[in-house]
């Protein structure tokens, strides 16, 4: 039964509030800080994207200099992966996992805070570069080597000054934060589940964070190692990537992509978790095929470690090397497809309520399907010899990152904001946000595939007229504007609802996992009495004592 939480008005010394947040080790506060931090950088990323899209709307545009543009796409990519996607997912995970498993906090609260602050420091370092060195209008000393910073472009010969070092150091620092967060997730999930919650009974979101945590632990190290080697090359006379002295440029690529590919699975897997919590509740049905979902996720985790060189099909690996990575890349699509089918089967025969969280999840299914299929196209290496490093790839990965990851993050916002703040986000504004964002997303990224098919490479600050690329670029730019409006509506909704939203109560969605058994927002100790569960949906059992899950699982 839902209960109202009585708003308490306590006037506190502002400094005390700041200190409270700065020194907190409470997973909920840390989660919120991660999320707010990421949202700020999401807006920054959006501005960077808008600037680039304005430049690319017409051939031979002079809106931006090449130097400024090259810094923009480097910052955009680096920010997006490390200071938007990872923090926001760590944020949701931090907030929700202990609640979902019936724990009072993460296993290592101080490591939790340390990890957040390290990640935050990384972002500050990266953007500090903009205000260092050269003129601000040219982007200062921001890195301009692309988010994958291929050698030898990053060597002192081709990247004089410190712009590359800002890239390296900010990510090294953020990487420490990521590893700390991953250690915490794995330890918490393995050892702090409440009574009765075996691994086979914990929410799928929790499983996803476990796999994600393991993957982070494995995948960050190659990047850190490569960055240390790069610093050695740049400053203490190393030659790891110095081809004049026998070093290898291809080795950087291997190290980077051994990190880089599992990294994108690190990003998508928690999003699979959001979808696996939201679709069942709004379809009014249990998740179809829980064991298969777990098996598929674990398989994806492992197989994703073996696909990296599909980013290197044009590098000149021998034919059997290319063929091997074609195979592994196609194989990883199988468990991914299985998950789509299981979500569909969950909806099948349900009574679907199309509140805003569900709208975003349905759009995710559609867009992730398409993004996955363009991924299979890219996996067929000869096709990648044409499409690789073109706008087709840019369209593909934005389909996954925006159409997949960001859409599910919005779903998560609309779903869990009531729990975090005690207030509902406005449904009307939510629907405006959704439909405008869908329109803008498809305008930008559907049509972006076409210049790729027509030969437009990526990372170009301008392009020739007469190649047939202009119209499509213009459409993409218009879509970016529409997306910007949608995001503004979202931000307005978030801020306004904090003060004026309808009271949420404990369980506004009639859901089934443990976080909905606490007040909204939960007290700092989460549960007065640590719960004990008998099935995957403890609240379903309470609401349906005549037909509990544990009879069927």
């Amino acid at each position, binding site marked *: 039964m839902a209960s109202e939480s009585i708003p308490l008005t306590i006037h506190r010394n502002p400094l005390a509030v700041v200190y409270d947040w700065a020194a907190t080790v409470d997973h909920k506060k840390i989660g919120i800080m991660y999320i707010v931090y990421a949202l700020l950088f999401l807006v920054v990323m959006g501005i960077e994207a808008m600037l680039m899209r304005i430049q690319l709307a017409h051939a031979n545009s002079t809106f931006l200099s090449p130097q400024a543009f090259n810094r923009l796409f480097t910052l955009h990519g680096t920010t997006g992966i490390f200071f938007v996607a990872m923090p926001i997912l760590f944020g949701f995970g931090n907030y929700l996992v202990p609640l979902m498993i019936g724990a009072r906090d993460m296993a290592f609260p101080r490591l939790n805070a340390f990890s957040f602050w390290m990640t935050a420091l990384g972002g500050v370092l990266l953007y500090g570069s903009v205000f260092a060195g050269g003129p601000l209008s040219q982007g200062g000393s921001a890195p301009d080597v692309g988010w994958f910073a291929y050698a*030898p472009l990053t060597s002192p010969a081709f990247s004089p000054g410190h712009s590359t070092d800002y890239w390296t150091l900010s990510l090294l620092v953020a990487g420490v934060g990521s590893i700390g967060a991953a250690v915490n997730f794995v330890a918490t999930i393995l050892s702090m589940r409440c009574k009765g919650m075996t691994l086979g009974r914990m929410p799928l979101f929790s499983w996803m964070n476990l796999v994600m945590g393991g993957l982070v632990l494995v995948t960050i190290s190659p990047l850190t190692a490569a960055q240390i080697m790069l610093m050695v090359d740049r400053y203490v006379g190393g030659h790891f990537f110095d081809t004049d002295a026998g070093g290898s440029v291809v080795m950087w690529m291997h190290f980077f992509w051994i990190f880089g590919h599992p990294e994108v699975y690190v990003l998508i897997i928690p999003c699979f978790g959001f979808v696996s919590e939201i679709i069942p509740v709004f379809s009014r049905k249990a998740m179809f095929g829980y064991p298969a979902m777990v098996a598929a996720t674990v398989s994806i985790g492992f197989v994703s470690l073996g696909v990296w060189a599909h980013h290197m099909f044009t590098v000149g690996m021998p034919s059997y090397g290319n063929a091997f990575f074609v195979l592994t890349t196609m194989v990883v699509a199988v468990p991914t497809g299985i998950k789509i089918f299981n979500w569909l089967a969950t909806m099948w025969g349900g009574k679907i309520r199309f509140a805003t969280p569900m709208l975003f999840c349905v759009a995710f299914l559609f867009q992730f399907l398409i993004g996955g299929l363009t991924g299979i196209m890219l996996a067929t290496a000869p096709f990648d010899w044409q499409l690789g490093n073109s706008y087709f790839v840019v369209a593909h990965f934005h389909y996954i990152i925006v159409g997949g990851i960001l859409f599910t993050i919005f779903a998560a916002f609309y779903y869990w904001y009531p729990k975090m703040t005690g207030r509902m986000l406005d449904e009307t504004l939510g629907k405006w946000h959704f439909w405008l964002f869908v329109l803008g997303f498809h305008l930008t990224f559907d049509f972006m595939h076409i210049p790729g098919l027509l030969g437009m490479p990526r990372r170009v600050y301008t392009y020739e007229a007469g190649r047939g690329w202009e119209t499509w670029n213009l459409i993409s730019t218009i879509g970016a504007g529409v997306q910007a409006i949608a995001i503004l509506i979202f931000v307005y909704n978030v801020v306004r609802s904090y003060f004026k939203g309808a009271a949420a109560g404990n369980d506004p969605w009639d859901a089934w996992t443990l976080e909905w058994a606490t007040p909204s927002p939960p007290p700092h100790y989460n549960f007065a009495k640590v719960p004990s569960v008998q099935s995957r949906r403890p609240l379903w059992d309470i609401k349906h004592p005549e037909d509990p899950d544990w009879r069927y699982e």
Partner: protein
Amino acid sequence: MQKKASTSWLRLSAQVFSVILATATAALADARQPALSPTNIFAPDSTPAHSIFRLSMFGLEVEGAIFVVVFSLLAYAVVKFRQRKGDDDLEPPQVYGSSQMELAWTVLPVLIVVVLFLSTAQVIHRVQDAKRPADAIQVTVVAHQFWWEYRYDQYGFTTSNELHVPVSDPKHPTPTYLSLLSADVDHSFWVPRLAGKTDLIPNHPNSMWIDPQETGLFLGQCAQYCGTQHAKMLIRVYVQSREDFDRWIHEQQQPAVSNPAVAAGRALFQAKLCFICHTVRGTPAVGKVGPDLTHLMSRDTIGSGSVPNTPENLRKWIRDPGTFKPGSLMPPQNLTDDELNQIAAYLETLR
């Protein structure tokens, strides 16, 4: 009843999609498609590009079919299983899973993967491991920031930025093999209508081949971010009849024209240190940092394809390459108008 409705939905969608795909494929494969874009990957004109095209069409059909099936299921579910007004408040039947369905939708994708993988592996092998005929033309491509050097070692000359190759008769192919090297950072050679792209990586020689089947000009550009002017490192491939190609070779093999009328300009070319970076064969200028200028006026463009080779552009370029390519590695030249005109007049004799 539900089953019948969903099957006929699916069949209808499949039929509609097949028609759409067939039309789209035909449209894309239409030989007039180069009008859509001179760099259209679906307008192949060389065996590697053709092989890729055929494989990609097959793949698109498979992927298209998957899309139609899954999308139809999603669309059906979203419509059919909506909660409607007047619905009771009871929860629907809870279905926890089905081993048979999991098996089915695991086995079927695995089979698709096997088929796609085998057809892909075949094309990889056919393109990458193609046996090189003894009479293939051999050109060494050296990528620089931000221009292309083309060494025709078997003919004894080097040129820049405009690659000439002979047309190849499909019945008796005369491919051109490109050895791909880099003088500095990573680059990538991409002429979509002729082949997929291959990277040029320092200390990692690569190789690719093309056998264009029509004469004409084929466009492309560098496809691996290589620095400030990556965007304007354009590629122009002139595919010529055998006679035209042989004539071009002969012309390129000659040392530079030595016209006494521009002796002043030639002297300035030395005095102003142009020779440090540029080669003009048959003169003391043997610089290797910038493009070979021996037959500069035989080229249609300057600045690696980015600007037409006109007297006005040539002068603007020499005065300050940043006018066209800010970030180009050629610095602005400190020349008076008079010096500029004399040097340009000299260069304009280098046919």
